[in-house]
């Protein structure tokens, strides 16, 4: 019997496996070091039913308002390889996964940044995150040149699936579209369970 997720992946015809240790090459270590533990924690937590590789159905819209293609993005990792980059990663991830970090609401937030870094590495190959904005959009900047900022707005929910992802998109889209000082913006939206995502260009 074929699962629904498997049918989707076959229908889409695009599949990609990404190993988290590769993120240390594709993106600046400063971003990766703190997001990988939360990401592994999210993918390993009981609430999202641990299973490795973890596969996300990603709806990718590479041009604003254009066609969407579906990608089966499998995330895999070798903990020993991750520990070469961060000896404490196993313990940090375990604390996130067990909900023993002081602020549980930060788990999807930090994991979302990790997932967005993966999405940038896979879907915008060669591009690197260079800056972060905390109080204005977008969250992660690919270019912080004044008047021509390019970046990725990030949101991650632990659950909710497509409905949660779409709700966030509808919430964020109008303000981003209005922002005249942004040269290029992508939305990177994730649901921890069911594992679904949208990565769409919303500007220009």
């Amino acid at each position, binding site marked *: 019997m074929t699962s629904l997720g498997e049918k989707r992946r076959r229908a889409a015809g695009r599949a990609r496996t990404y190993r988290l240790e590769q993120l240390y090459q594709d993106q600046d270590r400063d971003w990766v070091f703190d997001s990988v533990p939360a990401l592994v924690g999210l993918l390993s937590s009981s609430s999202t039913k641990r299973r490795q590789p973890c596969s996300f159905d990603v709806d990718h819209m590479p041009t604003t308002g254009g066609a969407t293609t579906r990608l089966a993005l499998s995330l895999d990792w070798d903990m020993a390889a991750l520990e070469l980059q961060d000896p404490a990663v196993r313990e940090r991830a375990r604390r996130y996964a067990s909900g023993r*970090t002081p*602020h549980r609401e930060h*788990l999807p937030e930090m994991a979302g940044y990790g997932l967005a870094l993966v999405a940038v590495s896979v879907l915008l190959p060669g591009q690197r995150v260079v*800056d*972060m904005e905390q109080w*204005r959009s977008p969250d992660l900047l690919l270019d912080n040149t*004044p*008047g021509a900022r390019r970046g990725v707005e990030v949101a991650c929910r632990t659950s909710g699936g497509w409905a949660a992802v779409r709700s966030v998109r509808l919430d964020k889209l109008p*303000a981003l579209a209005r*922002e005249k000082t942004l040269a290029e913006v992508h939305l990177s939206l994730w649901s921890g369970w069911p594992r679904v995502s949208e990565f769409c260009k919303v500007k220009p």
Partner: protein
Amino acid sequence: MTLDAYRHVKSGGGKLKFRARAIRAEQGEDGAFEAAVLLREAARAEERALRLLQAPDVETRLGAAVERCGCLVGARAPNAASLAWGEVLNESDAASPEIVRTYRQKLDPAYDALQRAFRRAIDASPVLKAARLRWAYVADQASARAELEALVAQFPGDFDLAYMLYQAGVFTRDHRAAWAALAKARQLEPENYVAWGAELLLAPRVLPLSKAEAHLEAAYSQLRRLRGDVDADSFLCFAVASLLLAGASKQPKTHHARALEAAELGVSARSDLFDSKPDLRVARDLAADLVAGRPPSINAFYRAGRGKLVDAAPAKDRNDPVRIFTGSFAYGGHALPSAA
């Protein structure tokens, strides 16, 4: 080149914000101070980056003001945030209402919540409130200290509160507690010269001789390097610390000579925000006597218009001009600085 430098400095600030967020996520309140230190550095990076641009447009200026204020809100530093908030308001005047609404969407409620929490916390601190948050006016020091420690825990990124905790330690002669509080204040605002001066004054009283001498050695290099940009107050604190240290050191002449050099530089400093020059003239004359091998003269105070220090000194010190002078700096009475 300027734009490259801007991008680089701004990016560095972004990484600090990200690290601070991770620390708060993983350590909660245990990491609140560490995160606050990073966020305050990120706020300074925003300011430094903006200064690198020749003619930033209004959106860039407002964006930097919003991020800077936001970092201070995130650091839970209400006093510094209120200063940065003024910049947000000023930059908003020049921007379109739509940009203002978009840029300040997250900041406005967070800033309001921080200031409300701060006012509630002050209302719950009756002794400090009665003293208008000035340690010198506090009536019941034990109660005030408990209130202040609660405020510092609630607002770990606030320099003014950390500095007041230092003052509390000095006023109660608990120099070790004062040193610990000052070390935290210095982490929050490493470039605050008032806190630097306080550290110089306290080092000879708290540190073992060798460490105190090493501390002043480093400060001496820094003063010589920055000389034109240093306020007279920093030269004064260094001169006083050198005179204090000379009393315990095996090389008093080195410290006397440095006190004289600092006092001379201080007397001619461009900036004198605390009216330090009369005291610097006292320090200069005392140090000049010591360097020349003469007994320091009490006349130094009268020549500089500081004769009241002689009258106010304890009777046992009145025949020792150096003790009169250094003793007058024992109470950490600097006004609260307001650098963010």
